[in-house]
């Protein structure tokens, strides 16, 4: 036998209000996505406003923009570079962030306060563009993909979140391992990391999204067109109709430039759109677990 809670009139009004508000928020989120999606499928000879385009039936859609982009050497090479930056960046960032966060989480660490201070200084004071540029060039990183992710491989914000997560883990687990003779490295690798899947995925995603979207470092340090990632190409495409309106044809053949722009935005967002749902379930857990302690 199932029992149902009887809703009062005011409850129902409240539910309607909440549902309407959520529907409105959903519409606000979906409309721009839908608009971009339909724009990316607009045929070259389409006549009508952006609103007309949004209600264009799918059988009138054209895939010319996607075909042009996916068949274009610049797009494929830029996507390949972005994936490399994403994976190499995330691995590098976690490689540096995890030990630092773990070290900071050990309360008995000698010089912990000093180390904490050293970590916080660059968080509060940015050295600026020129010192960063000099550093990257002196390290001969220009024209390498590492120039995009290495300068941001340790984020203080992410380190502090991870440190808080590590501090939340039961101290007894670490102690018992230490009593059994495990070194700190063993504790980290054998005890801490297997329990830290949520935070590793969460922070990994933070880093990944940052590296995937990073335009500035790539613009600054990568001169070789073959190494340019998607954000650079995307910006070039998005600026193209303004710059090249004298040009008789765009760089992607027959597809209209506005469809190319929309399709490129969509294609560039797909990896992140795909990644989020898989990682989402760890997301709240990862960030909230350490949120009580600062």
């Amino acid at each position, binding site marked *: 036998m199932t029992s149902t809670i009887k809703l009062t009139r005011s409850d129902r009004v409240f539910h309607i209000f909440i549902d309407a508000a959520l529907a409105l928020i959903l519409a606000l989120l979906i409309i721009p996505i839908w608009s971009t999606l339909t724009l990316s499928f607009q045929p070259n000879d*389409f*006549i009508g406003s952006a609103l007309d385009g949004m209600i264009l039936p799918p059988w009138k859609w054209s895939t010319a923009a996607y075909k042009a982009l996916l068949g274009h050497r610049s797009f494929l090479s830029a996507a390949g570079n972005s994936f490399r930056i994403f994976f190499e960046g995330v691995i590098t960032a976690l490689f540096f962030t995890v030990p630092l966060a773990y070290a900071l989480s050990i309360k008995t660490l000698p010089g912990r306060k000093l180390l904490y201070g050293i970590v916080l200084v660059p968080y509060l004071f940015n050295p600026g563009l020129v010192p960063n540029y000099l550093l990257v060039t002196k390290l001969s990183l220009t024209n390498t993909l590492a120039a995009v992710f290495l300068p941001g491989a340790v984020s203080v914000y992410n380190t502090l979140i991870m440190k808080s997560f590590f501090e939340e883990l039961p101290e007894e687990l670490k102690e018992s391992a230490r009593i059994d003779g495990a070194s700190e490295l063993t504790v980290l690798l054998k005890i801490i990391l297997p329990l830290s899947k949520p935070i590793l995925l969460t922070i990994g995603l933070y880093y990944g999204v940052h590296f995937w979207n990073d335009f500035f470092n790539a613009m600054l340090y990568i001169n070789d067109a073959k190494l340019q990632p998607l954000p650079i190409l995307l910006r070039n495409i998005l600026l193209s109709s303004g710059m090249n309106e004298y040009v008789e044809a765009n760089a992607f053949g027959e597809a209209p430039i506005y469809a190319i722009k929309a399709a490129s935005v969509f294609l560039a967002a797909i990896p992140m759109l795909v990644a989020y749902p898989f990682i989402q379930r760890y997301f709240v857990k990862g960030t909230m677990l350490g949120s009580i302690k600062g």
Partner: protein
Amino acid sequence: MKRIVKAGMIVLFMLVVIASAFGQGTKKLVPIELWYGAAITEAGPPPDDWVFYKIAREQLGIDLKLMAEPSNENDQDVKILAAAAANQLPDIFMVRREPWQILIKQGLVAEVDDMYPLMPHRAEHWFNQDSRNYTTINGKSYGLAFPGSLQKNEGLVIRKDWLDKLGLKMPTTLDEFFDVCYAFTYNDPDGNGKNDTYGFGAFVEYFDQEMYLGRRFDPIMGAFGVAGTWNMTKHDFGLNVKKPEYYEALQFVKKMIDAKVIDPDWPSLKKDDFRAAWKQGKFGIMREQFAALAAAANYAPFDKNFPNGEWAALPPPKGPSGKSSVGVYDMNYRIYAVSTKAAKAGKKEAIARLLDYMATDEGYKLIGWGIEGVNYSIDANGNISDKGVPEDTKFSSPKGQTVTQLRNMVFYNSEMELISRYPYFKTANGRTMGPLLYLKTFQSFPWTNVTGSGTIKPHPNNADLKRYINQGVQEFVLGKRPLTKENFAAFVAQMDKLGAAEWEKTARREMEEAGYLQ
């Protein structure tokens, strides 16, 4: 004896061959790094096996490295200034005038006066006194100015088929202009029985030299002698918005808005929406760019919708004192600067060699269009065309575009370039159509020369001041603020308080020093 001489000759010949081979092998290539403004940035760089690299190596003794600068000017500035701060500027690079001036002060770009005599082919079409003046500071030239984009390439156009249907003549004065707009709005020019057309269409398109109501309204402002942001005459230099004639111009625009003869969406339309609107036949007069109007791909949707529709170039209407102007134009150049580092390394001569080769007939075609038979062909009239060559390598194809990425370093808007880029075509009803039909007419109309105004330094409080002026002007014409002499005077007074007067004073000094005032 003869045999000995013969053998000796052979040995000598072989020695010469061997020696020359060694000579070739040991000839040191001069490495030149060039940061260029790509013609179509998103198309990607020239391929590794591009024939120009080979020519640079084998004929010019240059190991050429190319890098396309970012497509956005601000990004270009950041990249160049960061490289400059690290003393890592490339040997030659395209640079905007403002950062270029900073680099001169820092001593990071070299004088190039001694390079001009080394480039006889360039002298023919690319350099003249005007271009040298553009890069001359305190009597020394610090950069090579190449011709910029096509000037005077926009104009007013009118639906001739609507005029014919209503039995109207092309308007020549502002009053006639208003009357035609009125008829286009209320007399059903497309004959569909609906009240769905407007006389004039526009959208807000700002540039530093075209503020206030923006570029699309300039043919109206030009009738009052106040087109563009600045008045660049010696006797009346200053911000046009402060001139009494500007008030009159605003009154005229307001009259059009009040009569509802301007498409009312103009304050919120984006460029793409505006273009979709004229392709849908929403209005009958507009200012448009020649290729955006009449290049085959751009014209196709309009042609499909209105096979008998026809846009005719319309001379800008004359105002109360007989003035008229399509808008403003600027003699613009692309500056390529040589770094001091490159000059100190003795690379100037090699850079001149490279640039001069690009200006030879062979170099011009190679850089501009690629290889004959692969990327372009010569048609029966001797014009360069993309017909008769493989589809995937023709210069207008995605792949073919990559070998023309440096074309802005050689193009000077010659007839050959224009015909190849903007070919004529037939419309649905068999008319001959093409952007060049409009370009030449637009260029023959009156324009306002504001050369130099692009180099006026922005006001320190530029964003706020611009917002105040542009928003204020819009509020007046939209009736959000009553357009009276008193209100307008108060608006100008407040503008001065925000820094307009001070900005004008500084700008006048800059323009006088640079000799730009007419």
